[in-house]
């Protein structure tokens, strides 16, 4: 077994939900390994089970066939080695920004807590907002706080469920840059579910493409090129065309635009 932290292995995993006495297969025979320190995106149309897969890795879904392992151990419920950022920021409205970030830090002493909170506020660029309440923040700021909260526990793996899905296009691109910077600083495994092909290519080492009914992994595409990535570069556009083709949305001559 490897000694590296933050490795997730999914082996022969299938999951069904019972809807009106009918068994509905959500995930079918999923096999994939996410290595330590990788940034992986999972993309697919709605209903392909990508969020369910993420919830299994988080430990909120049980009752499946096959295996889901974190660092070689089977996942049994949520654990502090895995952090999560939801699509809705899910900040608690009765707590300040500071208290929200400290939400999972109960075991630390007061001083240590202050230190961790300050460090993570700085990481997401929100110094000075300690005492603000979530209702006073913009969508992008709230999502930064949610990222800080998830990272404050020092997880080995950060799971992101369409974390930027509710933001406007420009804030979104800015936050993608921020996510990349945070990932490079923290050096942890990040697994992100997204709808956005550009976002997936911009951020990921690997893009997992899923298709629906039942959810299967259609293809895993490596994205080897250097960061920060240029969304207008020919390699970017080439990979994008390749991914879109998997969704039957490809054009015949992608390079016509690139040249």
């Amino acid at each position, binding site marked *: 077994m490897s000694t590296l932290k933050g490795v997730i292995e999914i082996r022969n995993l299938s999951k069904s939900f019972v809807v009106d006495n009918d068994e509905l297969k959500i995930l079918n025979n999923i096999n994939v390994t996410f290595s330590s320190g990788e940034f992986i995106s999972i993309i697919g149309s709605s209903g392909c089970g990508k969020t369910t897969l993420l919830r299994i890795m988080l430990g909120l879904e049980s009752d499946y066939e096959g295996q889901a392992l974190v660092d070689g151990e089977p996942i049994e419920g949520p654990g502090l080695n895995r952090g999560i950022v939801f699509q809705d920021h899910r900040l608690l*409205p*009765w707590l300040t920004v500071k208290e929200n970030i400290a939400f999972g830090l109960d075991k630390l002493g007061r001083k240590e807590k202050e230190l961790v909170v300050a460090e993570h506020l700085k990481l997401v660029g929100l110094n000075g907002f300690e005492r603000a309440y979530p*209702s006073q923040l913009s969508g992008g700021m709230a999502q930064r706080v949610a990222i800080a909260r998830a990272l404050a526990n020092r997880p080995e793996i950060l799971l992101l469920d369409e974390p930027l899905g509710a933001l406007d296009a420009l804030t979104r691109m800015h936050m993608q840059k921020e996510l990349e910077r945070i990932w490079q600083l923290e050096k942890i495994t990040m697994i992100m579910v997204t709808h956005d092909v550009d976002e997936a290519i911009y951020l990921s080492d690997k893009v997992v493409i899923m298709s629906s009914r039942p959810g299967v992994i259609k293809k895993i595409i490596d994205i080897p090129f250097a960061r920060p990535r240029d969304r207008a570069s020919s390699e970017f556009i080439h990979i994008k065309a390749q991914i879109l083709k998997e969704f039957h949305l490809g054009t015949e001559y992608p390079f016509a635009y690139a040249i």
Partner: protein
Amino acid sequence: MYLLKEERVKSMNIRNQIKLRIGSLALPLVLFIVWQFIASQGYILAMILPSPATVFNTLITNITQHDLLLHVAASLKRVIVGFLVGTVSGFALGLFMGLSRTAEKIFAPTFHVIRQVPVIGWIPLIVMWFAIAEVPQIIIISLAAFYPMTLNTFAGVRNVRKEYLELASVNGYKGIKLIRKIIVPSALPSIITGATLSLGMSWGIMMAAEFFIDTSYGIGTRIQAGRSSFNMALVLVGIFTIGLIGYVLTVIIETLGRVVNQGRDVNKEI
């Protein structure tokens, strides 16, 4: 002078607030003038509708010679004790039923049948069973406070967003910690609504309790005294006192509610 936009908005707000204050005083003023006018015309016997001056004099003599303030204190004490007993037990039952479906199955049907009986309906029985000093009055008042608190706490606890519970479970929150840090704070706006309603009910039922149960002190007792001696001025003194103190109590609990809710903008919560 040219004002910045924010300053203009601010000064407008102050102006609007003053307008609002004047606006809310206008109706009482009109009512007072109408009252004074009718009383001074002598169309109606002074015994049935005493003039404002008579009522004011009665108020003064009641304060100086008839211990009105002690009567007020006696009523307030009953209401506060009854309110506390009723809301604390209502909070406990509401929380318990909200947390556990089994508890709901056991308690809810009985609770909903019993609460159909107007609180006043219990007075004869409660006086029979607990005829010791202040106990019957306090039981009646706490029963009135108990229902809204139970219902609103229950609703608040049941409606905690499942997303918050998920977040709590991801961070390892369980048991008492889950209740203290997630469930109760999340239900707080609803619990405060319950407490506000409970206070209104307690204050109203206090009158009934003092009417139906013999006591020597209480505002209700003064109104009863006015009634049996055809002293409508005294009845009106009692009514004004009750209205005014009730209003002050409501303002206090609403302010407390705002303080407890801190920076929460309940309207902005999804």
